[in-house]
């Protein structure tokens, strides 16, 4: 896809952005297959496909591909663009950054193959086998080195809020990836499961969330042309998320086999996360003051603000679900996938869409091809996501109460599942809309890139 010469400063960002789009499409196709298998368990059961598209094998492929192929690569591409801008310098080690782009794609490919073949470590969102984890850690170390070196050599003394978040994320990601993916035969039992969820929750909270919030802080002043509302709120937001988020793992074992002290140590910080989340949101709304009319015709801003609102909803649900009573009803049900899609698709993919719409014109030297396609992308994604989440939340609550009434296994359990079929249908329709939206997104970006190349070529030939 990439034909620019290596003198192009934005090459690393381009590689990461373009590859992330490929993984977005493939990962969502896997998601759709999963959704269809909820309706027809024998969907695509045909020859070898029965094994390589078996539900238990492809569900981790879906999550890993979208988390690490799409969202992580989009985030890294954004970091490689935003950090030099905020530091008023150029990216350090550009060749290594380019290499990292190819290396990361290699990781996603081999990781997905390994999962297809049934090699899994069971760690949710970290199912790749150990030798791939080692590659990931090397890749993340390279990423941290490139970014920290760029920040250290900055020409702008002041460290802007976004850079705090980026620095934090780049320390936390390697730390939690190593701890979460320790060789699983070395540990055992409930403490090991706690480590699995230490990783599973924090990879969302201390990587996707913190990079996403950093990007919100970067884009919002540009898109609104307002100053960032409050420096003090930014400070509170950053230091409280750094304090509380790490402690969230144990709430995944709420009501489970953990001692009381650990339950309290997990639940209290989960609820206190309201502090950083509301601080960020107050900052977003404060900055938006007087600029709400701009949301109507500025699609990147629309994505950004909607993403922030989805972030708020997720983080209102989170503390609620972590409490004993609500957890005893919605835990393990279809509520959970609804809740999980909200931050990674609704909140932080929306931020990534916004970043791409904002950054791509600057690196391919051409405006976004079509505003109408951008709008279509926004509305299809949003309607799809709302159908998806509301159907899963409703189904989840019904399932929870059906279990309380005794439909816990055997025929009664299956009867309960049959009754949930309408919701599975709505979920599939929602997922299809989300997928179609991304096709419009990619067509739009592809056209933009092509036009950018064309106008550049004519410019060069005329010069």
């Amino acid at each position, binding site marked *: 896809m990439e034909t620019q010469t290596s003198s192009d400063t934005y090459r690393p960002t381009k590689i990461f952005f373009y590859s992330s789009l490929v993984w977005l499409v493939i990962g969502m196709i896997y998601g759709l297959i999963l959704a269809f298998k909820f309706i027809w368990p024998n969907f695509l059961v045909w020859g070898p496909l029965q094994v390589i598209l078996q539900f238990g094998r492809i569900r981790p492929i879906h999550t890993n591909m979208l988390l690490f192929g799409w969202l992580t690569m989009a985030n890294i591409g954004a970091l490689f663009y935003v950090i030099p801008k905020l530091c008023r310098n150029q990216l350090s080690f550009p060749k290594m950054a380019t290499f990292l782009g190819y290396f990361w794609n290699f990781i996603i490919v081999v990781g997905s193959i390994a999962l297809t073949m049934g090699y899994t470590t069971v760690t949710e969102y970290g199912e790749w086998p150990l030798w791939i984890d080692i590659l990931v850690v090397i890749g993340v170390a390279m990423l941290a080195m490139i970014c920290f070196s760029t920040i250290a050599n900055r020409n702008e003394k002041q460290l802007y809020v976004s850079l705090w978040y980026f620095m934090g994320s780049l320390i936390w990601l390697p730390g939690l990836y190593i701890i979460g993916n320790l060789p699983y035969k*070395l540990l055992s039992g409930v403490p090991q499961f706690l480590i699995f969820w230490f990783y599973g929750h924090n990879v969302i909270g201390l990587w996707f969330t913190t990079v996403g919030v950093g990007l919100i802080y970067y884009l919002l002043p540009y898109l609104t042309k307002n100053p960032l509302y409050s420096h003090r709120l930014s400070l509170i937001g950053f230091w409280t998320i750094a304090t509380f988020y790490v402690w969230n793992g144990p709430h995944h074992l709420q009501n489970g086999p953990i001692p009381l002290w650990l339950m309290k140590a997990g639940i209290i910080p989960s609820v206190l996360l309201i502090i950083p989340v509301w601080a960020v949101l107050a900052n977003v709304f404060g900055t938006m003051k007087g600029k709400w009319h701009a949301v109507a015709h500025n699609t990147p801003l629309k994505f950004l603000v909607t993403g922030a609102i989805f972030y708020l909803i997720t983080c209102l649900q989170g503390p609620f679900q972590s409490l004993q009573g609500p957890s005893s009803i919605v835990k393990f049900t279809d509520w959970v996938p609804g809740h999980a899609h909200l931050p990674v698709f609704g909140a932080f993919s929306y931020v990534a869409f916004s970043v791409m719409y904002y950054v791509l014109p600057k690196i391919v030297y051409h405006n976004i091809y079509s505003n109408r396609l951008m709008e279509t992308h926004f509305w299809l994604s949003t309607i799809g996501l709302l159908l998806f989440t509301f159907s899963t939340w409703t189904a989840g609550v019904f399932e929870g109460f059906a279990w309380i009434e005794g439909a816990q296994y055997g025929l009664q359990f299956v009867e309960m599942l049959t009754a949930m079929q309408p919701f599975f249908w709505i979920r599939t329709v929602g997922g299809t809309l989300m997928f179609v939206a991304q096709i419009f997104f990619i067509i739009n970006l592809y056209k933009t890139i092509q036009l950018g190349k064309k106008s550049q070529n004519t410019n060069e030939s005329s010069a």
Partner: protein
Amino acid sequence: MSGFANERSMFTYVIGASILFLIGVFGTAYLPFYDDQMQAPNENAELRNYSVDSAEYRGREVYIREGCHVCHTMFVRPVLADSALGPISQPADYYYEAPAMLGSKRTGADLMWVGNRWNADWHREHLINPQKILPGSIMPRYDYLSDQDMEDLIAYLMSLKPSPQTEGRPVN
């Protein structure tokens, strides 16, 4: 962007972020290894401590390979939603579990004590064609498993029983 002179050094952030992270790691990922409740195996743990050459051990590998843990939990809580699933899980039950497969989503039923529920023939028929045994089930067919894998998997599932001392175990 002026007037925040203390925000010109990276080290505040690097060191602050690292320390706060390590405190959380210590509390939620390290300390549990030193908790008394988690440190003693019980009878159930011993029952599930399969030797490497047993059918149950191989069956567990099949269980992992096919991703059964993606849809089935092994996690009985003292809540109404789990009232018919059998004895409440305790940390000691999982002492030898590596990797631990407590699970996060019940697309299918909980399997903590599934060995009590059905017999081997039932499992065989059900794994080959779940819809025949439980009409309306959305579980995939596992008719592609080799005979060896199938028998190992069944042996593993049938081994998931509480020890006699555990039946009617109160919550502590």
